[in-house]
C-alpha cells in the first residue's frame, strides 16, 4: 500500500451502474426457505427471476443500496422515520414472528454509508441514521431472488446499505421526494473516492391490498403503466399523488414509491443518456400480490 495516494481521478470514484426493481413478497421468502420453488404455483415466479440471477452473477456489484420498507419490524409505533439509512457494519435477520429467515446476516458498508449520510444531509435530506437495524423480508427477499438460496452460515456476495422508507404510517414521502432522493443518492455515491460498483435496488409493490373488504385488489393495467412511465417518464410519474397509489394499486401498493428512489439514481436524470432496459417481468399472483421486476442499466456500465 502506498502511503500517499495519487490525486483522485474520475475513475477512482464509486459509480452507480444499474438499478433493479422488484416486489419483496414475504411468501416468496417462505417458498424459498421451504423448498417450494418448483411447485406449479411458484415455478413461474422463480423462472421470472432466472435472467436476473444470471445477470447479477455476471456483473456483481460491490455494494447495493437497497431501498425497502420496514414492515413494523425495526420501527414500531414509538418512532417512525421517513428515511432511515443503515450505517452499521452488519444487519441481523429479524424474527418477524416465525423465526428469522435462514439466510446469512447482511454485511453493510459503513464508510460509504457515512459518506452518503453526510452528502444527503448536506443536500437537505433529513435522514435518520440507523446504527442498529434488524432487517426483514423487505430487504432479504430481494437478495434471495437475485442471488438464490444461501446457507445461513454463508455470506451474501455483496455488501448492502439499507435505505428504509416509511410507507406504513401516513403521511408517507411523496413520489417527487423519493425521486429527488435518488438523484441526490447518485451525486453522493459518485462523490465517494473509491472505485466501487454500486447498484440501487428499489423494492416493494406492485399492486396489492392486505386489508378490508377490498383485500386482494390487483390492478394489472395500472402496474403496467407504472412500469412504462417509470422507464420513460419518471419525472411525470413522480408527480402522481399518494392517494392515487392507494386508490388504484391498493393500500399496500404505495410501496411502489420506493421504485422512484432507484429510478432517480439513473444517469438520465443527471443529464446522461437514458438507461437500457435489460429485463421486464410481471406475474400474478404471489400470495396476495402482483409481482413486478425490472432491470435498468446505465449505458456506461463497466463490463
Amino acid at each position, binding site marked *: 500500500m502506498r502511503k500517499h495516494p495519487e490525486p483522485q481521478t474520475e475513475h477512482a470514484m464509486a459509480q452507480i451502474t444499474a438499478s433493479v426493481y422488484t416486489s419483496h413478497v414475504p411468501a416468496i421468502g417462505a417458498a424459498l426457505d421451504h423448498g417450494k420453488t418448483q411447485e406449479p404455483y411458484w415455478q413461474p415466479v422463480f423462472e421470472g427471476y432466472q435472467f436476473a440471477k444470471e445477470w447479477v452473477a455476471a456483473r456483481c456489484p460491490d455494494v447495493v443500496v437497497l431501498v425497502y420498507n420496514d414492515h413494523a419490524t425495526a420501527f414500531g409505533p414509538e418512532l417512525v422515520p421517513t428515511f432511515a439509512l443503515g450505517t452499521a457494519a452488519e444487519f441481523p435477520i429479524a424474527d418477524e*414472528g416465525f423465526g428469522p429467515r435462514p439466510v446469512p446476516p447482511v454485511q453493510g458498508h459503513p464508510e460509504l454509508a457515512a459518506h452518503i449520510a453526510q452528502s444527503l444531509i448536506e443536500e437537505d435530506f433529513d435522514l435518520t441514521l440507523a446504527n442498529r437495524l434488524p432487517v426483514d423480508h423487505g430487504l432479504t427477499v430481494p437478495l434471495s431472488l437475485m442471488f438464490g438460496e444461501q446457507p445461513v452460515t454463508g455470506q451474501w456476495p455483496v455488501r448492502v446499505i439499507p435505505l428504509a422508507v416509511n410507507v406504513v404510517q*401516513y403521511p408517507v414521502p411523496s413520489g417527487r421526494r423519493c425521486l429527488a432522493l435518488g438523484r441526490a443518492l447518485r451525486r453522493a455515491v459518485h462523490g465517494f473516492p473509491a472505485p466501487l460498483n454500486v447498484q440501487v435496488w428499489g423494492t416493494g409493490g406492485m399492486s396489492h391490498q*392486505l*386489508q378490508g373488504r377490498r383485500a*386482494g*385488489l390487483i390492478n394489472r393495467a395500472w402496474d403496467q403503466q407504472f412500469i412504462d412511465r417509470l422507464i420513460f417518464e419518471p419525472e411525470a410519474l413522480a408527480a402522481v399523488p399518494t392517494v392515487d397509489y392507494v386508490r388504484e394499486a391498493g393500500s399496500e401498493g404505495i410501496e411502489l414509491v420506493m421504485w422512484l428512489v432507484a429510478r432517480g439514481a439513473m444517469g438520465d436524470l443527471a443529464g446522461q443518456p437514458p438507461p437500457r432496459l435489460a429485463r421486464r417481468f410481471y406475474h400474478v*399472483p404471489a*400470495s396476495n400480490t402482483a409481482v413486478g421486476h425490472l432491470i435498468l442499466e446505465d449505458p456506461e456500465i463497466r463490463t
Partner: protein
Amino acid sequence: MSPPLSKPYLDIPGTTVFDADMARRGYGLNQFCMSLMQAGNRSRFRADEDAYLAAWPMTPEQRAAVRARDYNACIALGGNIYFLVKIGATDGISALQLVSSMSGMSEDGYRHMMLAGGRSPEGNRRLGEHGDAQAPRTAD
C-alpha cells in the same frame, strides 16, 4: 377537539389508511403485535392469551378483536396489517389465509380470485360505486 385534517383517502371503499389518528388509537394493540417477534412472548401468548393481552395497554374491544382473530375489527381499532401479521405468524397461518379472512370471501374463493388475476379495481375505487368490495349505494 380540532377539526380533522384533509384526508383524501376516506372515500376509498373497504380500505383504512393508517394515519396519525389511527396510529394513536392502535398504539397499544400494535405494540402487543410487535412483542410477538420474540419466541418467548409467542409461547406466553399461546399458553394464555387473556393473561398475555392483559399486560398491554389495549382497550377491551381491541383484546376481544385479537381473541376472535377479527382482523377487520383490529384494523378499525387502529391496528395496521404489518403489525397484525405477527399474530398470524404466531398462529402459523399464511398471509393469504389471514388476508382472505378480511375479504368477505371464503379462503378458497379468495385463493381462486387471486389465481384468476386478483380483485378488479373496477367499481372499487370510490365509495358508492358498484364493485365487489362494497355494498352498492341504494337508489335515492
